[in-house]
């Protein structure tokens, strides 16, 4: 599957890694919902590192739709929370 890291590009990941990444992803969601900024930052960094480590970067000119999308490494908890509101990432 294709995972996009916002601001970085796309990574091709084997589906077999999804389970371990899902754990981190769920942790990240829990930290975001509880407002644990430090935990959120730590988990996001770990998750992004894992995705970069396990995946293969796609060339910039590749036209592949992303299956999963991750916030950019410098995204704050509030920014991600805003992205996940009903309004979504692109207003309108």
């Amino acid at each position, binding site marked *: 599957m294709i995972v996009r890291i916002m601001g970085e590009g796309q990574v091709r990941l084997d589906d077999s890694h999804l389970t371990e990444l899902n754990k981190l*992803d769920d942790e990240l969601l829990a930290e975001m919902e509880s407002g644990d900024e430090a935990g959120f930052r730590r988990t996001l960094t770990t998750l992004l590192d894992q995705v970069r480590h396990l995946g293969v970067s796609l060339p910039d*000119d590749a036209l592949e739709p*992303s299956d999963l*999308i991750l916030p950019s490494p410098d995204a704050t908890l509030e920014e991600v929370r805003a992205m996940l509101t009903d309004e979504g*990432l692109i207003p309108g």
Partner: protein
Amino acid sequence: MSGVMKRMGMIFRAKANKALDRAEDPRETLDYSYQKQLELLQKVRRGVADVATSRKRLELQLNQLQNQSTKLEDQGRKALALGREDLAREALSRRAALQQQVTDLETQHQTLQGEEEKLTLAAQRLQAKVDAFRTKKETIKATYTAAQAQTRIGEAFSGISEEMGDVGMAIQRAEDKTAQLQARAGAIDELLASGALDDQSGLAKDDIQSELDRLSGGTDVELELQRMKAELAGGSPQQAIEGGTGQSTSQSQPRDTPRFDKQ
């Protein structure tokens, strides 16, 4: 709802689909994107040209400074030859200042040259990317057109099959209706025959009349039979009939002449 990345992906896709729905034709979007890339490439090329122009200007300035420097050196030499050491010193000090400028400009020149090389390389890479995108875009457009045609064909086919289905249904319905009517007609006949239904046509007879008809019908047959027998025996059919009607006037009838009593 699960993790962040899935939710973000879903929101992105939903938004992208919405955005795509609004776009009249994805091929136009691709063309637009290509156009934007070409514009970007144009900008980079313009940047390369600007840097090259600056480099050229620096080279001209350097040449001028070099010429001035040479001229000052000559003037210094001449001044010394004429015994004017003060003039020679002035010329050489000016030359030294020019040399400093030359050194500065040479450094700038080198920097610009490096910049130009980098930009030229970037422009070449971008050109390659834009070319690749153009090829990909054309492929996607062709695929999209083919898919669209395929969908149209599919739709046409499914439309035809639906129509065929409708025809089939109509036939089925007609058959059902016919069978239903036949069954109904059969049932009505039975009901009329049993007298449960009144025949509105007025052709039906009550059971008593039917029985009488049956009996008289049977008698007519008997009468006809007797008449034929009489004919064969040589007797007058008229007589026989007359006899049959109970108005016999002849006594010479054979013995076996049947009696025409109505039963």
